[in-house]
């Protein structure tokens, strides 16, 4: 590609050495970060999940042909696979756009070192190729390919076919990186997908048939795998150029932030001594990436209710109440578990201000209650669609208001990991530890168990009544609870400060 092609100046450090040193830097950045090793449990769970997913991919690849043979004995299983490959394109694109963050380098201290700037870009792009998605696909394809060969397909053609698919995936990865930077390209891609979907719906084209045709011909003429490879290289070149042009950090400085609007939020005055904290919290949410994306994630979980096919069916009752609890309570659990860590950057200031923890917590309680109500209101369409939803949503809304909110705040007091507000919540494990998982379990399990036991012994109505009564009791006891939680916060003040001060 001629990037490093200028070898006249041999004193420049070569690419291999730079890559090795950069990898060393990256590893130290990871292994010396404050969160490393501290949440060993989370790391283990993640590693286990990763290993399971990988094993699952290998197993799926091996068994796919056999399964298809059982499901549709008359059809050619390989043709079926080729016909379904299309569905994987938008899925991979979406997964990569959401979860794959381009690797970042702290580039400024490296720019003065004697190697070409382009090497840095190659390094970042190479890292993006090594994403988990690619690994997953590679495992799946190798195992699928092996099973195809075992079924009597030509090894050479299968290898070409698999390579073509892998190249397509890599090209999609490059496309996702490009689209992540350019809203215009993203809009074009979405429009293209909508157009294809529309044409398919009107019967002008048949997407599965086209997919079958294309990928069967890839098998017949494996050299066609060069096409996605060429496209991938072209996109790589585009990414490379775009990123290399951004490698002059000095040019954008002094960075001029856009003028910001600032409302007085006078309506918050009605909350008395909690008002300044409420204003602070709302501004915190609107103006920082991490709380915003955490909140956004909560809305996605509203779709959980779609899992319940028939809410009136008593076999699905458990799923119904679980979804009711989860949908009305997810925002509280997801967002509230990071209280007070959301304020970790200015906790010192708050600790020297003449206000009690009670005022501080009251604003948090109000915010979290608002979260429950908003989620409950947004779940109303379920109740309109099927009236069986109405009662469980209502009683679990009460339960979340009365019990989950103080519970989340209490467990928040035990949380001493700092959170940087500026980074997205997607794929960000900062501040996440085993306690977080435990918290969600502690909130969900007892209420579910109680609801289930009361229903099993008496009736569904008794179960709802119990949950609702618990919620109302929690609401009535709120003053006492918040005071008690406040004393926990006060007792843990120094520990919390020490934790928040660690970067």
């Amino acid at each position, binding site marked *: 590609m001629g990037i490093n092609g200028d070898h006249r100046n041999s004193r420049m450090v070569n690419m291999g050495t730079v890559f090795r040193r950069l990898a060393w830097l990256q590893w130290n950045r990871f292994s010396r970060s404050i969160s490393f090793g501290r949440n060993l449990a989370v790391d283990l769970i993640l590693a286990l999940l990763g290993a399971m997913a990988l094993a699952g991919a290998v197993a799926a690849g091996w068994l796919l042909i056999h399964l298809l043979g059982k499901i549709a004995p008359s059809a050619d299983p390989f043709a079926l696979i080729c016909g379904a490959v299309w569905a994987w394109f938008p899925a991979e694109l979406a997964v990569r756009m959401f979860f794959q963050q381009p690797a970042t380098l702290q580039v400024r201290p490296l720019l003065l070192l004697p190697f070409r700037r382009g090497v840095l870009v190659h390094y970042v792009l190479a890292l993006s190729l090594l994403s988990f998605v690619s690994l997953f696909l590679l495992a799946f394809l190798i195992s699928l390919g092996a099973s195809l060969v075992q079924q009597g397909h030509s090894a050479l053609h299968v290898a070409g076919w698999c390579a073509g698919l892998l190249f397509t995936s890599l090209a999609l990865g490059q496309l996702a990186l490009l689209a992540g930077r350019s809203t215009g390209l993203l809009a074009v891609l979405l429009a293209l997908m909508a157009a294809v979907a529309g044409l398919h719906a009107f019967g002008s084209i048949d997407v599965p048939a086209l997919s079958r045709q294309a990928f069967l011909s890839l098998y017949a003429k494996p050299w066609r795998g060069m096409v996605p490879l060429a496209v991938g290289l072209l996109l790589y070149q585009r990414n490379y150029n775009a990123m290399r042009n951004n490698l002059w950090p000095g040019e954008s400085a002094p*960075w001029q*932030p856009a*003028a*910001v*609007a*600032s409302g007085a939020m006078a309506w918050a005055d009605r909350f008395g001594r909690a*008002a*300044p904290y409420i*204003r*602070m919290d709302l*501004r*915190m949410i609107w*103006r*920082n990436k991490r709380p915003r994306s955490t909140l956004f994630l909560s809305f996605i979980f509203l779709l959980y209710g779609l899992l319940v096919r028939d809410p009136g069916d008593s076999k699905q009752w458990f799923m119904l109440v679980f979804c009711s609890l989860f949908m009305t309570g997810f925002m509280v659990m997801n967002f509230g578990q990071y209280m007070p860590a959301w304020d970790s*950057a*200015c*906790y*010192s*200031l708050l*600790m*020297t*201000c*003449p*206000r*009690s923890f009670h005022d501080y917590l009251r604003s948090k309680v109000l915010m979290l209650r608002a979260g429950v109500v908003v989620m409950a209101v947004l779940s109303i369409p379920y109740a309109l669609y099927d009236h069986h939803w109405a009662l469980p949503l209502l009683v679990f809304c009460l339960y979340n208001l009365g019990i989950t909110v103080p519970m989340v705040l209490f467990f928040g007091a035990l949380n001493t990991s700092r959170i940087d*507000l500026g980074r997205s919540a997607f794929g960000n494990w900062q501040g996440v530890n085993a306690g977080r998982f435990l918290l969600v379990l502690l909130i969900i399990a007892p209420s579910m168990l109680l609801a289930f036991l009361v229903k099993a012994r008496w009736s569904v109505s008794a179960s709802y009544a119990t949950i609702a009564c618990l919620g109302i009791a929690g609401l009535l006891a709120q003053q006492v609870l918040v005071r008690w939680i406040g004393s926990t916060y006060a007792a843990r003040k*120094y520990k919390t*400060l*020490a934790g928040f*001060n660690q970067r």
Partner: protein
Amino acid sequence: MIQVKQLSKHYGNKVALNLPELTLPDGQCVGLVGNNGAGKTTFFNLLLDLVRATTGTINSFGQAVHLSEDWKLHTGAYLDERFLIDYLTPEEYFSFLAELRGQSTADLDALLNGLGPFFAGEVLGTRKYLRDLSKGNMKKAGVAGALIGAPKLVVLDEPFANLDPSSQLGLKAILKQLALRKEVTILISSHDLAHVTEVCERILVLERGELKKDLRTSPETLKELEALFTTAAKA
């Protein structure tokens, strides 16, 4: 009045601060000097009850800071950027503090008007969040925040660092004026010996957690301090 009794702070085996006895009378303007690791910031953190003492107590406004929280009503402090709320504009930050410290909008406006020359038009009305200000302007906002609410004790860690020359002069003028009124106890740390001797009437020299010198400022103090730190550098 601030009274220190048998105060010490250990981190593991390391003694960060050890002050058997110290009294700062009301209205005094006190400067803390010392090389890195001398214990200045540890002392401030203890005074503001942000870390717990290993032994001993600090009394501020008549009560131990870790037992009563009443000192918060009369104390303004700016130690570092953790005292800023970086996603607020300076105006929002000031009114947040004014609200918590029970100040009216009029009080706040009067104070900010007085600080106008110090801000030099770079803090108020810029329509930027605090995180987008330069280091110097962040410090100005933080120092101003510490003055909100008519505090009787003002604690500033390295207030002159990062400030441009005009702002350093402006800050000195503000602190001197505050010290003149003899109602406010001022406690500042600084690596700039000239500034601190000019502003403060009393200088405490800390070295590796111990109080090494307790000087009443006189025309000779600056020379004396320079001599002290020169020998320390040679040692």
